[in-house]
């Protein structure tokens, strides 16, 4: 049964002056047979919105089509409750503000957009939120160090139940073993006790937090609000259900044994910063070789860091940690000669005050590169280095202690034998460590971003991993110091809370926050091709043993990549589907060949390309009126059948505007635009079979700030199509 639709055309913001809105209204009433079509000069005003509301009630409208401004604005004004479908037709930014007024082509564009909007509204259905039995909101925190303790404490303070799992027999982690921490409060010059002891007390006292030490995670299956977690303690399994997961398993220090050039392992008086911290905590920093006092010490910063042969990255906290330890030595013996050999001193923010304090204590800083460490008969060390600012070879002799400031390797990886191929943490072979043991089709652990850190694109996904509902915090996510880890863990706890709250209502998490639609699979026609299970960027779809997809809707981000992947087109959302977009293409009025008015379908990513087009309009940048823009959730949701639909309809060209992909991708769904690119590469062959030029389909990467380039991109493509000539399938 056809649903009851109302069409509302706004004539404000120069829409009324630029277009023949009477003719536009006739598209709705005559062509599309929509009896209710109204015009208003100020639709987003109180009276305008009221007009629509009254009609929704009085006429029992199931869907309203609003032909006005961009869907990116006034969405709150044009919200008529959960049972009314709203479809927006962007006449303002993408028609009248970017094309000449009183123009035949501008008018044709507006009319096409209205046809497409009505078609979409006709095909749309109201989403039904996904709600499962026994959804829970408790949070599993893996790792009981500073970040884990903070996340657990913050979540509990917000009223959520927490299960905190720590593999060691005690809480506190790396920071718990520190003697002191670097200053965190004014005057930013004094050593402080670490916050760990206080946090452990808070966590242990909290009635909402359940602590499991000497425990590991044996298995996790399910998804947000439905995670079935199996813990293991002394070989004994136990199970419970969790809503979201914070991973705070920290980092391990880089393996100093690989730094034989610096004498580690050969000379007992060469130690790591971690070992020095242990000595300080135990109250006596002395020469490990013979227990003699330390009169001269050399700190080697960036030991194995920012080094292409070891860890190529900066571990961000070693400079300040070494400053702190230099102060330990000065505290113990104010006359000690303490040298710090550095590549660069990175003391950001208020740590600069601390750096000055340590300088004032007489610690001598040398920009240099250590070339060798040697030992004499009395086990005194000599450190040879290139003094980079004096341009000379230099030496520190009679040294009692050499301290190597080693970097951080995420706890999710460990070293492997030389020759192993996987080297996520720089050029040192590493293997993934079992931390979460996810029962996911796409692997048991979190995917890494750079150097083995299970991070995600931080701008698109702050605090997140590439697994929905699992949030990494602290130095497992990226190298960071105590202050940063505390902040990070608080952020991750908040994300976990958002996740359980949204998911328990059937709504999507970031970036389509609140979206109630989710992909549904028409399984009778599934061919078990595994495209959807392989391509889902978030590992939301498992497989059974016969390769049937087993969707986990609470893991889903609703990007539609599976829908774009499916060759059988059996995956669709209630309000976004392959036939719906196909019908929108078919709704375009394609002029006859002799009219010499080509038509171009532009599939534009909603996240960057579509707003860039809006911004072009906002800046009144003009482009050709042959384009018909269709926003897509992600370019990865583009199904190749739409290309065929377009070409068979007589459309002359298809342009895909999506996000940058590759290592520094900007795709909001990680690899959607990349997948679209891969799929497109396979289209050329099909075009050839149809005697069509491959140039008729083009993909361009744009970001939101490329709005000034977008008109050029559209016009270039139009010019190329003119060269190629019209689509021979016109009129078929």
């Amino acid at each position, binding site marked *: 049964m056809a649903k009851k639709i109302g069409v509302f055309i706004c004539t404000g913001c120069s829409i009324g002056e630029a277009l023949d809105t009477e003719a536009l209204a006739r598209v709705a009433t005559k062509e599309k047979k929509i009896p209710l079509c109204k015009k208003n000069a100020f639709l987003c005003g109180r009276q305008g919105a009221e007009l629509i509301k009254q009609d929704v009630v009085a006429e029992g409208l199931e869907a309203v089509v609003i032909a006005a401004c961009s869907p990116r604005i006034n969405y709150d004004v044009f919200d008529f409750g959960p049972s009314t479908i709203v479809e927006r037709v962007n006449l303002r930014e993408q028609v009248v503000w970017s094309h000449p007024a009183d123009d035949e082509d501008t008018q044709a564009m507006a009319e096409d957009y209205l046809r497409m909007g009505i078609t979409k509204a006709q095909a749309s259905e109201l989403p039904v939120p996904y709600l499962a039995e026994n959804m829970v909101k408790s949070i599993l925190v893996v790792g009981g160090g500073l970040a884990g303790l903070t996340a657990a404490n913050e979540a509990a303070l917000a009223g959520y139940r927490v299960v905190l799992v720590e593999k060691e027999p005690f809480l506190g982690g790396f920071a718990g073993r520190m003697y002191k921490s670097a200053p965190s409060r004014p005057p930013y010059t004094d050593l402080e006790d670490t916050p760990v002891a206080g946090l452990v007390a808070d966590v242990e006292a909290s009635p909402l937090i359940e602590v499991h030490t000497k425990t590991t995670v044996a298995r996790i299956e399910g998804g947000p609000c439905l995670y079935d977690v199996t813990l293991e303690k002394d070989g004994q399994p136990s199970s419970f259900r969790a809503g979201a997961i914070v991973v705070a398993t920290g980092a391990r220090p880089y393996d100093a044994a690989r730094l034989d050039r610096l004498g580690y392992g050969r000379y007992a008086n060469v130690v790591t910063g971690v070992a020095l911290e242990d000595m300080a905590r135990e109250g006596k920093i002395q020469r490990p070789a013979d227990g003699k006092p330390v009169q001269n010490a050399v700190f080697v910063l960036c030991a194995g860091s920012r080094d292409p042969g070891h860890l190529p990255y900066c571990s961000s906290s070693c400079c300040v940690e070494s400053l702190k330890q230099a102060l330990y030595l000065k505290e113990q013996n104010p006359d000690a000669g303490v040298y710090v050999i550095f590549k660069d001193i990175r003391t950001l923010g208020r740590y600069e005050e601390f*750096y000055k304090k340590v300088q004032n204590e007489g610690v001598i800083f*040398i920009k240099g590169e250590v070339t060798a460490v040697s030992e004499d008969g009395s086990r005194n060390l000599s450190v040879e280095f290139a*003094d980079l*600012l*004096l*341009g000379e070879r230099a030496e520190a002799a009679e040294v009692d202690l050499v301290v190597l400031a080693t970097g951080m390797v995420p706890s999710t990886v460990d070293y492997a034998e030389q020759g192993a191929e996987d080297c996520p943490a720089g050029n040192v072979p590493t293997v993934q460590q079992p931390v979460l043991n996810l029962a996911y089709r796409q692997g048991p652990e979190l995917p890494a971003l750079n150097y083995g850190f299970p991070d995600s694109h931080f701008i698109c996904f702050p605090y997140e991993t590439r697994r929905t509902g699992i949030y990494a915090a602290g130095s497992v996510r990226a190298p960071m110091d105590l202050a940063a880890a505390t902040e990070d863990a608080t952020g991750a706890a908040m994300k976990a809370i958002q996740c359980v709250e949204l998911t328990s209502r059937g709504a999507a998490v970031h970036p389509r926050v609140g979206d109630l639609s989710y992909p549904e699979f028409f399984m009778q026609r599934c061919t078990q091709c595994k495209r959807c299970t392989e391509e889902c960027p978030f590992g939301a779809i498992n497989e059974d043993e016969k390769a049937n997809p087993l969707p986990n809707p609470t893991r889903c981000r609703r990007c539609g990549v599976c829908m774009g992947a499916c060759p059988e087109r059996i995956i669709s959302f209630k309000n976004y589907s392959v036939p719906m977009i196909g019908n929108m293409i078919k709704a375009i009025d394609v002029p006859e060949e002799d009219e010499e008015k080509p038509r171009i379908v532009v599939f534009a990513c909603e996240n960057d390309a579509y707003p860039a087009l809006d911004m072009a309009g906002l800046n009144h940048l003009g482009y050709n009126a042959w384009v018909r823009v269709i926003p897509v959730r992600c370019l990865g949701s583009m199904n190749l059948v739409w290309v065929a639909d377009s070409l068979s309809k007589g459309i002359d060209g298809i342009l895909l505007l999506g996000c940058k992909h590759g290592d520094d991708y900007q795709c909001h769904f990680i690899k959607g635009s990349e997948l679209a690119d891969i799929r497109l590469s396979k289209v050329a062959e099909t075009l050839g079979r149809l005697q069509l030029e491959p140039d008729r389909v083009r993909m361009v990467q744009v970001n939101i700030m490329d709005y000034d380039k977008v008109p050029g991109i559209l016009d270039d493509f139009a010019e190329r199509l003119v060269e190629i000539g019209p689509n021979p399938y016109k009129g078929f």
Partner: protein
Amino acid sequence: MADNSASSGRLKYEAGFAREVYGMENGSYLKLCMQCGVCAVSCATFKIMDYSPRRLFALVRAGRKEEVMKSNTFWMCTTCLMCKARCPRGIPIVDVMHDLKGLALKQGYVNYPQAAFYQAFWQDLAGRGRIFEGGVTARYFLKRGPKDFGKIMAQKDVGLKMLSHGRLPLRPPKAVKGKKELMQMVAKARELEQKGAN
């Protein structure tokens, strides 16, 4: 400029000289130097210095006393204050240079003509409480001896011109009436400063 030149010998880091310098009136500010080099590019006489201020301070830390004390760097400083105004660590570099000159004079590193000039200037000042330019000049050339005879001749033209324009007073100014008390103050200050330093 000798920056960035590498010598074949190996530089041995030794903290004694740095301690000596840190003990001077403004010396401890040097601890804060982060070797950014803003002083070097701000210096009016950088091009004729053996080492830039930055490099000089690095040499102090390395303990290379002879190179530091024998360098012309601090003697070339004109007290123009640009480095002091710009130093991001707020080091009064000019005052450190004064201290280094003082150390050089005290310990006999006086090969540069500026050392003689400084001594001549102070002697003239101490004698009267005010400066007589003619007196300073005479004392200076007396100290330098025959080796600067050429310079006297070179400045002859300028001197004559200044004389004819009334710019070279031939008689010294009157001495300060409270000269004795002035010198008592100076003596007391030097004594107290000495005590404070130790």
